[in-house]
């Protein structure tokens, strides 16, 4: 990936809480390997809370960066937990219990720190399990709890959620809450997404109008998470031009897929 967001994933601030939306598992694994691998290579501790399939994809990518994964686990630099097993441990009546969650999270963080790794990064996908199960309120609540723990314990947190950037339903239900609970929000490929949305906007709105709407979006200040440019564009389109958003997003989705097949953003 040649993405500006890679700089953020390589060197997050201690309390950053980053959300990446993805719908391609290759991007997910690559992004997580950048986040976890660069931290471990510079001597930081790492916590991975993954579903087993994703851990199976991620571990070889870390090895490819020269990290001896079993040895890192042995010396306590890397803690790997099963997301599907960990999540039920702090859920109560369909929502995360703040006290139990904090005990669980802080326990793992302290364990890595006790092994001699003061700086810790956390990547997890328990939130994705809630999102995929349609438990939007619980998803937002867990993100809030991660923000609190990251802030209180100076841990960089990176979450990945399988969310289609062209799906209006996702934008309406999950994104507003997600924006409020993260310091940064990035798509899997901002450049490709922006190019696709720009092209679709030109087609649907007309060249001059599309440029003007894009300029208004660029000019405007936003208080929420540092949202990648393309996602901001999509969100503002939904808000201000809902009558065109469906058509623009459908078309952008086709362009996005085409660019993926061609292997490069146009």
């Amino acid at each position: 990936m040649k993405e500006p967001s890679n700089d953020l994933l390589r060197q997050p601030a201690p309390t950053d809480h980053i959300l990446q939306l993805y719908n391609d598992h290759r991007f997910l694994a690559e992004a997580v390997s950048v986040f976890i691998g660069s931290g471990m290579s510079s001597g930081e501790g790492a916590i991975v809370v993954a579903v087993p399939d994703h851990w199976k994809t991620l571990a070889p990518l870390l090895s490819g960066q020269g990290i001896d994964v079993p040895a890192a686990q042995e010396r306590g630099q890397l803690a790997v937990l099963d997301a599907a097993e960990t999540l039920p441990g702090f859920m109560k009546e369909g929502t995360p219990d703040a006290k139990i969650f904090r005990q669980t999270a802080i326990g793992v963080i302290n364990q890595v720190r006790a092994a001699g790794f003061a700086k810790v990064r956390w990547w997890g996908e328990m939130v994705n399990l809630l999102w995929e199960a349609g438990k939007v309120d619980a998803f937002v609540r867990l993100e809030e709890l991660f923000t609190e723990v990251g802030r209180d314990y100076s841990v960089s947190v990176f979450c990945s959620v399988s969310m289609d950037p062209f799906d209006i339903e996702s934008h309406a239900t999950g994104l507003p809450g997600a924006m409020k609970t993260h310091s940064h929000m990035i798509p899997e490929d901002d450049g490709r997404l922006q190019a696709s949305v720009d092209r679709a906007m030109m087609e649907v709105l007309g060249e001059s109008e599309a440029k003007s709407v894009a300029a208004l979006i660029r000019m405007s200040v936003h208080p929420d998470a540092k949202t990648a440019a393309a996602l901001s564009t999509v969100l503002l389109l939904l808000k201000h031009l809902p009558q065109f958003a469906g058509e623009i997003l459908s078309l952008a989705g086709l362009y996005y897929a085409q660019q993926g097949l061609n292997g490069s953003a146009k």
Partner: protein
Amino acid sequence: MNLAILIVEDEEDDVFFLKRAFAKGAPQIAVRVARDGEEAIADLSRVGLRGGELEHPIPSLVLLDLKLPRKSGLEVLQWMRTNPETREVPVIIRSSSNVLADVERAYELGCSFYILKQVGFGELHTLAKCIADFLHVQGRNTLRLPLFGI
């Protein structure tokens, strides 16, 4: 389509250059001006009265400063959102304040865009053109057939 916007701004220079920018960049838009918050509310309250909409139409958009005499921009925005006639009118905040609390409150009250004031006629000319195109798109009919392939 009759388009009108209401500029709510107390700085004389800003009013002058904004009116000029709209006259040059978006001459199809009629521009009304209110110099403070109370004048803005009075203008918006007259909507639909005295000769009906043709004489004093609901503005298609309000360009609103925040720091205003008598009533602040946020108070005007709050009033607009509680008034059935103006509840849906898009509002662009154009302010020199980038204080997070102002930005957050403006979006909570439903502003469409929050733009920081910049110096220069070029910025205003661009803004006028962008607003004209935005209103044109917003007012456009969407009776388009679904796309079958590309």
